[in-house]
């Protein structure tokens, strides 16, 4: 099990690095799926099979599906800036090096052993619908709000919006247009 953890961790790190370095968007997303699968394995080795399953179903399944749909809808590769110049990496890398060093120092290598044995779906569900039931309700409200909000934001405005080019010659609200795009 220990070996499995370290292998999965290595896979997760490598896949995640590839996510942020690939200039092909679809490739990047596929590496993200790999990374999420690896994290699911990590969860399994930590004795949390329930969230391991959820990681696969929700993250790697549903959320990634959304990404893929968005990419297909937008035909992203045609225009988006996907290549990053080498020099742009320097500053962020220095920053995260410092941050990571601090975090590792803070965590400390004290070798606290994890609790042996797994925490199965039954216990999770008991906690979820016991003391955390209010949180579940709030999460459902959040998801509903996100659903409505996404529907509203993505839908086309009813009047000719700022986005469509106006027919030449007759431009009743040219000024509004300019105001919007300025």
């Amino acid at each position, binding site marked *: 099990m220990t070996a499995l953890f370290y292998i999965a961790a290595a896979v997760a790190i490598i896949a995640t690095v590839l996510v942020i370095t690939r200039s092909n968007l679809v490739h990047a997303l596929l590496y993200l799926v790999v990374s999420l699968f690896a994290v699911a394995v990590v969860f399994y080795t930590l004795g949390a099979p329930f969230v391991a399953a*959820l990681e696969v179903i929700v993250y790697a399944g549903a959320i990634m599906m959304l990404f893929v749909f968005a990419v297909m809808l937008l035909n992203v590769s045609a225009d988006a800036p996907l290549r990053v110049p080498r020099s742009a990496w320097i500053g962020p890398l220095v920053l995260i090096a410092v941050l990571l060093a601090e975090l590792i120092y803070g965590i400390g290598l004290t070798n606290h052993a994890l609790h042996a044995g797994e925490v199965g779906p039954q216990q999770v569900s008991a906690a979820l619908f016991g003391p*955390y039931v209010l949180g579940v309700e709030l999460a459902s409200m959040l998801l509903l709000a996100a659903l409505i909000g996404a529907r509203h934001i993505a839908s086309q405005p009813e009047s000719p919006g700022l986005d469509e080019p106006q027919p030449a010659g007759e431009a009743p609200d040219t000024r509004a247009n300019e105001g919007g795009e300025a």
Partner: protein
Amino acid sequence: MAAVSLDHGLILAAILFVIGFVGLLTRRNLIVALACIEIMLNAAGLAFVVAGARWGSADGQVMFLFVLAMAAAEVAVGLALAIRFRQSLGRLDVDDADEMKG
């Protein structure tokens, strides 16, 4: 059954987090930026699960579920915004979104 230590799990979470962070700092594509945020949220969830596993309690996993719900909500709205963004500006470059600069 496991000889995995708490520290290693947390360090893995920290590494994933900073990778997501560096992606957010360098990549200009809005979709990739959203993916980076997903990575960071996932890392945070991982830290919860590791901490829960330390004590053998279900709380960490419950927190991961909440993070998951939040990530789902965030990505739904974020992608909807990406669609509008593309329609408005014709591109998906986050650097283009500077209309509100002072």
